[in-house]
C-alpha cells in the first residue's frame, strides 16, 4: 500500500478572503509581523498499489479530475 499527501493551494493572484480573515485574526491575537496567509487543503490518500510511478500518475489524475479546480488552484503530490 502506498500513502500519499496531496496539497491544494490557491494560485497566485487569486484572492483568498478566508486567508485574509485568518491573517487578521492572527494579528488580533497579538502575533506581530504576520504576512500574507493563504488557506489550502490537504488530502491523505491510501492506495492499494505498489508501483510508485503508477500511484503518482493516478494521484495527479485524481487532482486534475476532482481534487483541485485547476482554474484557481495548484496541487502537489507527495508519496510517503
Amino acid at each position, binding site marked *: 500500500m502506498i500513502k500519499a499527501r496531496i496539497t491544494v493551494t490557491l494560485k497566485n493572484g487569486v*484572492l483568498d478572503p478566508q486567508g485574509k480573515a485568518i491573517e487578521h485574526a492572527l494579528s488580533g491575537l497579538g502575533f506581530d509581523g504576520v504576512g500574507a496567509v493563504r488557506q489550502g487543503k490537504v488530502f491523505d490518500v491510501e492506495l492499494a498499489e505498489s508501483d510508485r510511478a503508477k500511484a503518482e500518475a493516478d494521484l495527479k489524475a485524481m487532482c486534475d479530475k*476532482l481534487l483541485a479546480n485547476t482554474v484557481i488552484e495548484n496541487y502537489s503530490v507527495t508519496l510517503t
Partner: protein
Amino acid sequence: MKTAVVLLPGLNRDRDMIAALTKISGQAPATVWQTDTEIPDVDLIAIPGGFSFGDYLRCGAIAARMPVMRAVAEKAAKGVMVIGVCNGFQILVEAGLLPGALMRNTSLKFVCRQVKLEIANANTMFTRRYQPGQIIRSPVAHHDGNYFADAETLARLEGEGQVVFRYAEGTNPNGSINDIAGIINEQGNVLGLMPHPENLIEAAHGGSDGRALFEGALGIAA
C-alpha cells in the same frame, strides 16, 4: 415547450424551479436524478440552486461528476438550452460547461437579499425579452458567488458578449470580478447565474422581473 429539472441530493430550490417552469410553460418539467444517464427530449434543462452534496470539497464539485451531468453535457453539445441557477451555476463551471470558477464571497458572509441586475447582453435566447442595459431586480442567496476567471478568459467573455447579467447600482453582493452575475457559453445555449429569477415570476413573489427570462428561453408570449 418541454423542460427538465436535474435533481441532486442537497439541492433545495428544486421545487421553486419546478413551480416556475410549470406555471410559465404550462406543463410540469420532467425530473432527472443524479444517476440517470439519459435525459428526455426537452427544450430546456434547468439545474436548480441549493447545496448539492453539502458543498463538500467545493460547491458543485461532486455534483458535476455525477452521471446525469454527462447527459447534460451531451444535450448541451446538441444545442439544448441549459440554465444553472446558483448551485446550478457552480455545477456548470465545475463541469466545465462554463468557464471560470465561483469562490467564497469576499465578505465571507452568506448573502440573502434582493439585488439589481443589468442586462449586459439582451441578444441571447434567455434575455431576448429584456432591453439592453435594462435594470431588473432579483433575489440572491449564496455563500460562494464570487465569480473569478483569469485575465485571458475574462477578456474573451467580455469581448464576445458572454457576460449576460451584471450586478448593478452598487449591489454586487459577493465581490464578483467585473460585477459578473451570469455568463453564457460561446454557443449561446448554456447560461449560469447566481441570482434566482425563478423566485420573482408573479405578483405573489413581489414582482415578476425574472419571468421574461423563462418566457424568452421557451418562446412563450408574455
